């Protein structure tokens, strides 16, 4: 079904001879909430980087909407890819710290504005921005500089920025890393709400297996730059290849993972990035 959702064929990314993504095929359809999991170094973030034009890649990445056939993304500059309705977040929330929440969202909403609009002062709150404020629950904080927001709120703001962009493909890189339990719940619900719109395709990179099991509609497991397994949460958990990868890893890390014998979802996730971000 080329032309609907994200279609990746034979994607390959290498850095100085090291192949980070090694021939990945992937299809994600609108309305899906796809989780991309895999051990560190599996190529998850690089895959997203390649889709959004941040790193050079070979192969084919197409993204189609209901309005038209998929356009080839490989070779396009970052901002042009973004204008096709593809948005992403980063492991570390990057919002414009010196601007207010409202200003952040307004900028996200305005990529297509003409020069005259740009040179004028913003009047009131655009509808899309008001709606995103509501969806993300940030209405109260809209005049706060984004730099003083709590970690979870920044992630929500980032997602809000993707919403006002009217993004059709959301690529979220570890959105709940470093969040408290309540924040995770709230984020998960937010993601479900967002992906209920059948025009949207959501891809989430995640380490947190509890979070994945609670909210994923489908899962792809990457390992060493290749797709290892794909299916529903239950299917993937039952896949012996997946178990082996995670068991193999767990054996090396016995000290940190005493419950290694269980299925991957029960494995405690040692994520250094997450702990670093809590500061």
């Amino acid at each position, binding site marked *: 079904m080329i032309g609907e959702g994200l279609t990746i064929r034979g994607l390959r990314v290498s850095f100085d001879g090291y192949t980070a993504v090694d021939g990945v095929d992937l299809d994600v359809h609108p309305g899906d909430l796809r989780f991309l999991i895999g051990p560190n170094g599996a190529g998850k973030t690089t895959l997203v980087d390649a889709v*959004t034009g941040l790193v050079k890649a070979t192969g084919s990445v197409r993204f189609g909407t209901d309005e038209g056939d998929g356009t080839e993304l490989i070779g396009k*500059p*970052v*901002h042009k890819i*973004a*204008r096709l309705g593809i*948005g*992403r977040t*980063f492991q570390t929330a*990057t*919002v*414009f*710290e*010196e*601007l*207010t929440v409202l*200003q*952040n969202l*307004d*900028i*996200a909403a*305005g*990529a*297509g*504005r003409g020069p005259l*609009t*740009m*040179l*004028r*002062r*913003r009047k009131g709150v655009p509808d899309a921005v008001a709606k995103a404020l509501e969806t993300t629950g940030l209405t109260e*904080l809209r*005049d706060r*500089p984004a*730099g*003083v*927001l*709590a*970690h*979870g*709120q920044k992630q929500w703001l980032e997602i809000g*920025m993707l919403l006002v*962009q009217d993004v059709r493909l959301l690529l979220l890189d570890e959105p709940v890393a470093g969040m*408290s339990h309540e924040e995770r719940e709230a984020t998960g619900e937010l993601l479900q709400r967002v992906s209920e719109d059948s025009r949207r395709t959501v891809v989430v990179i995640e380490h947190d297996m509890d979070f994945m099991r609670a909210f994923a509609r489908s899962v792809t497991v990457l390992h060493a730059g290749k797709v290892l397994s794909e299916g529903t949460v239950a299917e993937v958990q039952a896949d012996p290849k997946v178990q082996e990868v995670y068991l193999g890893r767990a054996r090396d890390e016995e000290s940190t993972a005493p419950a290694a014998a269980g299925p991957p979802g029960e494995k405690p996730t040692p994520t250094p990035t997450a702990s670093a971000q809590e500061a």
Partner: protein
Amino acid sequence: MTTTSAPTTTPAPETASERAFDRFRVPGGFALGAVLLLAVAPLALSDFRLALLAKYLCWAMVAVGVSLAWGRGGLLVLGQGVFFGLGGYAMAMHLKLADAADTGVPGALPDFMQLYGTGEALPWWWAPFANPVFALAATVLLPMAVAALLGFFVFRRRVRSAYFAILSQALAAALAIWLVGQQATTGGTNGLTDFQGFFGYDLDDPANQRTVYFIIAVSLLLLMAAARQLFVSRYGELLVAVRNSEERVRFLGYNPANVKLVAYVVAAGMAGLAGALFVPAVGIISPALIGVVPSIGFVIGAAVGGRGSLVGAVLGAIAVAWAQSTLSDAFPAAWTYLQGLLFVLAVGFLPGGLASLGAVVRRNRSRTRTGTRSGEAA
């Protein structure tokens, strides 16, 4: 890449009461400035002092552009001398040609060309500057075109900000060297000097000198108004966003190169206009105003006064220029130390400049409060 410049001003929190204050404060301050520049100064100052002020206001005009490009956009524009010089030379070439035409000799060359030139016809690239409209337009458009060209290449390839600063300096050095080398057509180190008239008015007449002052003062006010509009516009917000995180802006579908380019080109145009008005006010334009050192000098005022604050940058530029001309006679050595110290203290320890002193104090007082509040929210 994350931001490379220090956090300077956080945009004013837009609570209702502060907005009302803002509504009063900005036009009020502007009106006060206009009264000071257009009424008080001409009445209170001697012709000589007024002429000096005119010169300082030219620096201030450059500082307005620096405040936009550096203060808002985080682009350290270390080559403003280039644009100041281009504007100045465009104006000076016209005045020289007008003076030559005034001699009544048909086809007369500007005086310095008769001395140092080949004695032949006017170089082709001088000819259009005889037209006042062309020359006036060129004072602003020429610097903008050069900035657009350079900016296009530099920003497009995501050259690191540090490289940009060094390249700007190198460009300033190159232009100065080139101008000095072309003595027959640019006057070399001497620059262009000894102007008789300014669009038909005798520059020796004090009344006309005063008019030049008024033109400069009004231009400065207009530039400040224009810059202020850019600051508060959506573009201004976007510019801060680019400074905060260029990569993030790109993922929102903007091309940050273009965002930066606009600020850079506008700042160049402002420097060009300043250079053009400097010529009738001071009576000279020379390569000495273009090289690396003057180009850094254009930044110091904005740094001291506060790069993120328009008024701070303008007052800083005027204050530094004033200090230089008053202190350097009495204490030439001490002034050099002071100048160095100003850079170290203003940029190193008070990146918001003097304009941020109040805000720094306020922030320190309210830090505990903000801390608790964001804690609650989390």
